[in-house]
């Protein structure tokens, strides 16, 4: 009896594993596939080289809170400079990031961990990327969704029908959502609020645009 129970348990564990790993992600589950309207989508939020993008940043990671100032600027056609400082202005990290390269200009010892840097690079690339090639399009009453493929990773871009603003990016594999980015924008020039929510690690980055910054 005990033996058969163990066997049953093993089989069910195996089944759970197989079934979950076969499951496809449900990002556009309730959406209808529609014909492609365009072959690419351009995100305006960090694309203007004359704008200093300055945000108050609040980061929650594994239950710890960290806050400071997030600064991004497009410094040439392919590259953004990204700096994170404390409220007092001390630099904590200073990166240069393009879609294919990155360079760490500075990072404080306490944050100098390979895993953390790689996570941030992925997040910042998603945040700053301005051009996506579109493979498929989906639609419901509220949103137009564009699917962009990037090797094994998929990016779903949610564009709200009411104001034509990009409101969400879901970064996923074929099976699982990895990172969600939520954007709030009033003018479709920059985002006033951004939330980067990880699905596989307890990491959330919230960015709020500096109210007094008018440029």
């Amino acid at each position: 009896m005990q033996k058969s129970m163990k066997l049953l348990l093993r089989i069910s564990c195996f089944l759970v594993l197989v079934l979950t790993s076969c499951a496809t992600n449900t990002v556009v589950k309730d959406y209808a596939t529609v014909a492609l309207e365009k072959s690419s989508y351009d995100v305006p939020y960090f694309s203007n080289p004359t704008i200093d993008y300055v945000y108050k940043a609040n980061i929650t990671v594994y239950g710890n809170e960290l806050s400071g100032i997030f600064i991004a600027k497009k410094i040439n056609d392919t590259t953004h400079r990204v700096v994170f400082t404390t409220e007092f202005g001390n630099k904590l990290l200073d990166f240069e990031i393009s879609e294919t390269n990155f360079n760490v200009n500075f990072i404080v010892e306490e944050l100098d961990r390979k895993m953390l840097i790689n996570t941030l690079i992925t997040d910042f690339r998603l945040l700053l990327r301005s051009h996506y090639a579109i493979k498929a399009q989906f639609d419901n009453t509220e949103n137009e969704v564009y699917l962009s493929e990037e090797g094994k990773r998929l990016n779903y871009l949610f564009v709200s029908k009411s104001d034509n603003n990009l409101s969400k990016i879901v970064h996923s594999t074929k099976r699982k959502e990895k990172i969600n980015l939520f954007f709030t924008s009033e003018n479709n020039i920059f985002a006033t609020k951004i939330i980067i929510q990880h699905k596989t690690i307890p990491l959330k980055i919230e960015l709020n645009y500096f109210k007094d910054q008018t440029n």
Partner: protein
Amino acid sequence: MKSNVFLLLVFINSFCFSSFAQEQKMTDNEIAVFKQSVAMVSKKIKSLSTDFVQYKHLDFLSKDIETSGKMVFKEPNSLLWQYKKPYSYAIIFKNGKILINDEGKKSAVDIGNSKLFGKINKLIVGSVSGDLFDDKEFTISYFKNKNQNISKFVPKDAALKKYIKQIELTFDKEDATVVQVKLLESSADFTRIVLKNKVINAKIDEASFTN
């Protein structure tokens, strides 16, 4: 071509002159008088409150990032540093604790006897009150211009040096109080804090230092 060289010379000359006029090294005697006057003022400070405007300069940005707020200090070591614009963020150093209020979200960190935080606390209070002249902690150099005295502090402590390359305090010549604090991270990037509406020894309510 000749005129170009001439213009260049004029430019270099005027540049040298203006920088000469702006900032001059103090003599040993001037240093002694200056230090004494600052020590006299800072010794009298039992409490201090001031408004400030902080300009974060990063060389790749088109303009400095401006934040502003108020700072309150009360002897022996209670300190409030509060940003009001463009967001509300307050940090309080009191009895070995750091209290933070970030847009209403409150937290506390026990720093106990953390040497580095002790130094930072001393540094902030010292920067604003002018009482930073510790030769053991800093290599100090002294300059002057028409209306101001400027002292430059290079930290000796390795831990502190990682965060701050140099601190520059600008003093008003008349009343020997600090009007500007500049923290240099590198030659191109720095934080400049301008102090305004300073009030010395007004009665400060302890409640200012609660979160």
